[in-house]
């Protein structure tokens, strides 16, 4: 099964607020995408377009070449798990599972039952009576067991404790090995989840800042530490995301390809090169510039 999601020049405008600005990307089957961005960056808006919750103001979202909005075939391929208000929901977990089985042709009941016991989710309680963490567990079970070719988790860990989140992350990886699909994980917990990602999409103020596989992205970012004058000489002409100074020592985070001559200079001056994490890159690439 090959599934491809394409976003072509999509913009989304709410009255006068432009939530998404001319976004383009392609998502390929069998990969786990980390969608990261600050609060209000447009992550949920973007995901809601893929799930056909709404139409873009401009541009197209396609699944396997077909526009997704109001397309039955495309819509049955997407599960969008997000924080849901269940305060008026009297139905039980069991009833929702039956509903999912009815409308999700790919739903795997046996797997759902395994997950229910793994997460220790009570099935006869009405969903409104479950704790926030358990409601999130329920959402995650629906998302995983639906086994749709495109599965989106938008901060799905809301209220989950650390061990539960670990089980959730492990299940994503195991599921991806068993039934490869497109997973999109939208998150704030970058440092906790970065090992799950094959690719990273960083979105800031409605624009895609980065879309790259995680290894290439991390290779592009590095830190340099040394004397102030040496560091300043080396980084001249490079993209510096952050700089810190302590006494006569300066440390900078640099982003981008490093020219050969710069590599030689760094060696010659004996500057210390360090790795940066996705978390660092995320903070620096999306920080406010005044």
């Amino acid at each position, binding site marked *: 099964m090959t599934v491809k999601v394409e976003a072509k020049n999509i913009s989304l405008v709410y009255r006068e607020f432009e939530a998404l600005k001319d976004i383009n990307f392609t998502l390929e089957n069998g990969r786990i995408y980390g969608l990261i961005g600050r609060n209000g960056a447009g992550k949920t808006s973007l995901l*809601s377009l893929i799930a056909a919750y*709404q139409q873009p103001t401009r541009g197209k979202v396609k699944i396997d070449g077909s526009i997704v909005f109001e397309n039955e075939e495309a819509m049955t391929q*997407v599960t969008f798990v997000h924080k849901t208000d269940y305060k008026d929901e009297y139905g039980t977990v069991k009833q929702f599972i039956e509903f999912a089985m*009815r409308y*999700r042709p790919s739903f795997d009941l046996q797997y759902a039952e395994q997950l229910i016991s793994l997460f220790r989710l009570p099935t006869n309680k009405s969903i409104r009576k479950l704790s926030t963490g358990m409601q999130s567990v329920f959402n995650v079970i629906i998302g995983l067991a639906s086994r749709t070719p495109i599965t989106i988790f938008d901060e799905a860990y809301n209220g989950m404790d650390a061990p539960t989140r670990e089980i959730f992350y492990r299940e994503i990886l195991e599921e991806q090995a068993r039934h490869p699909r497109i997973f999109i994980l939208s998150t704030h917990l970058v440092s906790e989840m970065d090992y799950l990602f094959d690719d990273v999409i960083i979105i800031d103020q409605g624009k895609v800042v980065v879309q790259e596989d995680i290894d290439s992205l991390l290779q592009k970012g590095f830190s340099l530490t040394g004397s102030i004058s040496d560091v300043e000489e080396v980084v001249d002409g490079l993209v510096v995301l952050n700089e810190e100074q302590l006494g006569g020592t300066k440390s900078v985070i640099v982003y981008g390809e490093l020219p050969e001559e710069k590599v030689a200079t760094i060696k010659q001056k004996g500057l210390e090169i360090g790795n940066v994490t996705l978390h660092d890159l995320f903070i620096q690439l999306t920080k406010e510039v005044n």
Partner: protein
Amino acid sequence: MREMGKKVAVGLYLEQMKWVLWYLPIIYVFYFILVRFVNEPEIRSISILTFTFQTATIFMLVCGILSSFVFFSQYVKYGVTRISYFQGLFLSVIFLAITINGISLILAWVISLFNLNLFKDVTLSSFGENSWALTMFTYTIIVMIYYLTGWLVSIAFYRFGGFGGLISVVVAFVIIVLNDLLWEFSTPKPFIGFLQFNKVVSQVTIALAGSIIIAAILTILVYKIIKETPIKVT
């Protein structure tokens, strides 16, 4: 009609029948108590079908209002298109209206078989004693109109929020008044008397045609609103 539309129709019908199974027994008990203990000629002449119909208008209006908040986003979240949902809910409304009136019609018929003294003054409807088919058909159309009106209001509130929703309330109000004007036996509204409207239409066929047109207009309005309604991420 899409296959998914039919599937949704069955699901929504069964879901709403849970509400009907609460509503109908309560109404029937209430009817028997009224007929037994209230010695008003107007009450004693009303059939169980007509009595149920008059309350069913409000019941269906409430169901219509609830529909967009209880079902709509849930179905779309599980991959059902808005059009399939629309088809499914519309079909389920037809069956719901037939079921409510059908069960009441059968009860009215069973009661008439026993020739009980308590029900000796009962008339089936204002169409006359043996107007079973006409009464059933008319009541079904009218309760559907009430459901569609509730649906219109709720989907307008869901999509447009406060102001658009309020406009839909005005539209719904006008539609209900128009429909009531067509049928003198419908739930009487005090303002009609207040505004001193005369009975506009007496011919059943014209009134029926009017109601069918109203139902069609409501259906088109709901369709126009629902087909591009964004789902709230909550």
